[in-house]
């Protein structure tokens, strides 16, 4: 593109008295330069809002509480020894893994059901099931919080109608953990469903016909055709969801604020509590940095698998 216009423009500029401008123009017209310039806004954006904060967080995490002295890895050592932080690691993993597994299973089931609803109805159901995903999470979590309220809320009212006692939804450790996970699953399942539905639609019908003739029943078709064909989408969706779920803040913050007795804290809410609310910013930074190696590890393996399979399958 730039090459085509190079000659006439350059020729014009050469005729003008300013030789320096010609050099500038030639520079600007080089393809790679153009490409770089076009990407520059994004690069700047990423640098400002991702790279800089990341390095700043690393720097911060190595200071003492008053941010006056360099303590090396002291904050990390301190965190690891602390019982609450050990709970946070356990809970973050529990929260992310359980929620992602449930979302994946539910999303897969829903996608299958959806796939078998004929024509127009499918669109309506798909639209309805996407609702949780498009409501701002903070708002919907607030609604859930009301529904979990121990004395005046929907769930306990229903339980009472059937003669059961009130359940202190957000007041007891394991129940509260379950509630935060449930809300996350409610919110995140539509994303899985829509991704899986797209993947299901892209599996050629003839593969099912061929496998039917080869002698496969419904379950065998699922395991030998559908799942292998969807493996890439499943991996990428799971990875993506793992990252966002691991870093979840809104749900835990609004539902339980980490309680009761810190039994629902995850990395992000704990970092907020330690860093912002208690004013120990370096410790908060150190806390949130713990997420990085865990996610990087997961991303590496998932993406490696995806690349390998894409090469094999893409025809």
């Amino acid at each position, binding site marked *: 593109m730039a090459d085509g216009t190079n000659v006439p423009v350059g020729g014009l500029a050469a005729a003008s008295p300013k030789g320096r401008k010609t050099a500038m123009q030639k520079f600007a017209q080089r393809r790679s330069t153009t490409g770089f310039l076009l990407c520059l806004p994004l690069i700047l954006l990423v640098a400002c809002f991702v790279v800089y904060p990341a390095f700043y967080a690393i720097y911060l995490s190595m200071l003492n509480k008053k941010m006056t002295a360099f303590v090396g890895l002291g904050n990390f050592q301190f965190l690891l020894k602390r019982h609450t932080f050990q709970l946070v690691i356990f809970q973050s993993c529990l929260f992310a893994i359980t929620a992602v597994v449930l979302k994946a299973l539910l999303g897969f089931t829903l996608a299958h059901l959806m796939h078998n609803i004929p024509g127009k109805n499918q669109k309506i159901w798909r639209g309805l099931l996407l609702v949780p995903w498009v409501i701002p999470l903070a708002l919907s979590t607030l609604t859930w919080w009301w529904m979990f309220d121990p004395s005046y809320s929907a769930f306990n009212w229903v339980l009472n109608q059937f003669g059961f006692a009130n359940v202190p939804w957000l007041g007891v450790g394991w129940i509260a953990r379950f509630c935060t996970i449930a809300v996350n699953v409610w919110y995140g399942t539509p994303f899985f469903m829509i991704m899986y539905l797209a993947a299901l639609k892209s599996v*050629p019908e*003839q593969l099912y*016909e*061929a496998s039917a*003739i*080869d002698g496969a*029943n419904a379950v065998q078709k699922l395991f*030998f*055709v559908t799942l292998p064909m969807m493996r890439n989408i499943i991996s990428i969706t799971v990875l993506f969801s793992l990252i966002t779920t691991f870093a979840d803040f809104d749900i835990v913050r609004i539902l339980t604020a980490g309680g009761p007795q810190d039994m629902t804290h995850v990395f992000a809410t704990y970092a907020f509590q330690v860093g912002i609310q208690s004013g120990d910013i370096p410790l908060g930074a150190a806390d949130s940095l713990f997420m990085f190696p865990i996610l990087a590890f997961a991303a590496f393996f998932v993406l490696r698998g995806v690349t390998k399979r894409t090469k094999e399958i893409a025809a």
Partner: protein
Amino acid sequence: MAEVSVRKVVKEYEGGVQAVKGIDLDIADHEFVVLVGPSGCGKSTTLRMIAGLEEITSGEIWIGGDVVNDVPPRDRDIAMVFQNYALYPHMSVFDNMAFGLKLRKFPKDEIKRRVDDAARILDIVPLLDRKPRALSGGQRQRVAMGRAIVRNPKVFLFDEPLSNLDAKLRVQMRTEIKKVHQAIPTTTVYVTHDQIEAMTLADRVVVMNGGVIEQVGTPQQLYHNPATRFVAGFIGSPAMNFLPCRVQDGANGGLAVRITDSIIVPIPPARADRYGAYKGKEMVLGIRPEHLFEHHDQGKPGWTRVDLPVDVVEPMGMETMVHFFVDGSPVCARIDPATHAAPGEMLPLTADLNQMHLMLPDTGRVV
């Protein structure tokens, strides 16, 4: 191995489209039957109903002495080769071929033996470890056939297996398929819209049109004795010439066909009985290009000279195609390349009327 019967089978798709309108077909054990016809005539639908991939609206399908209307594809003991192969992209060639046997719980060494045998027959032994992506179209085609062969099923079903290949490879694979059938004579139903493929492969050809069977017969029968104008026009390349005409009295008490005022040809005496009843009626004369050739001084009985104005000459090497217009209808003749023919000139031709066909203009039935 088994015979297949299709009895009064109708297929109506949702929305009332009748793709197959009540067909009857009996296929003998070991027979190679080709369904041929223009696009949309219901060939694939018929094949898919035999496979069990498509429900039957009414009628019965028998495989090996059992009605299989309600038997799912996996229990019909059939194998199918699809137009775009439908290989499993995530499995190696070996696994693609072994899949059906694995599902049927064959022992490992038996699977290996069968896949190796099939791979040897199809000449794809070096490809067994590859994924389908790394194969050419012809190789994929062989793998798809291998997948069918290893199962040793009662019936092979092919749905336009060669139409994604280039012309040269198509001819080569056609021979290959014939060889495989000679080596493993399984009952085969083969769908194609290519009449040459049909003629070369089939024991019997089934010509379909608009959801009904026009004619069933050996390639020779279809070529020499087409039952309808459709079959006459569909089988043979270039296609048969059709000319509106009238049957009338001819010289010496015989019959003649009047095409135009200047072109009146005598009907061979052997056909007189057959055509007598149509005297005075408007009919359609059908004659193949190969039965319209350069004029010979010594004729044979049934040969007649006609002179036509040349429109286009197409030399093909071993023969020359000459096109004419007779009273608005296109006519093609196949002449010796040594014969002189030039556009605008009159060309003396011989019509071999022993090979003529007369059909009714409304129903197209050959009389």
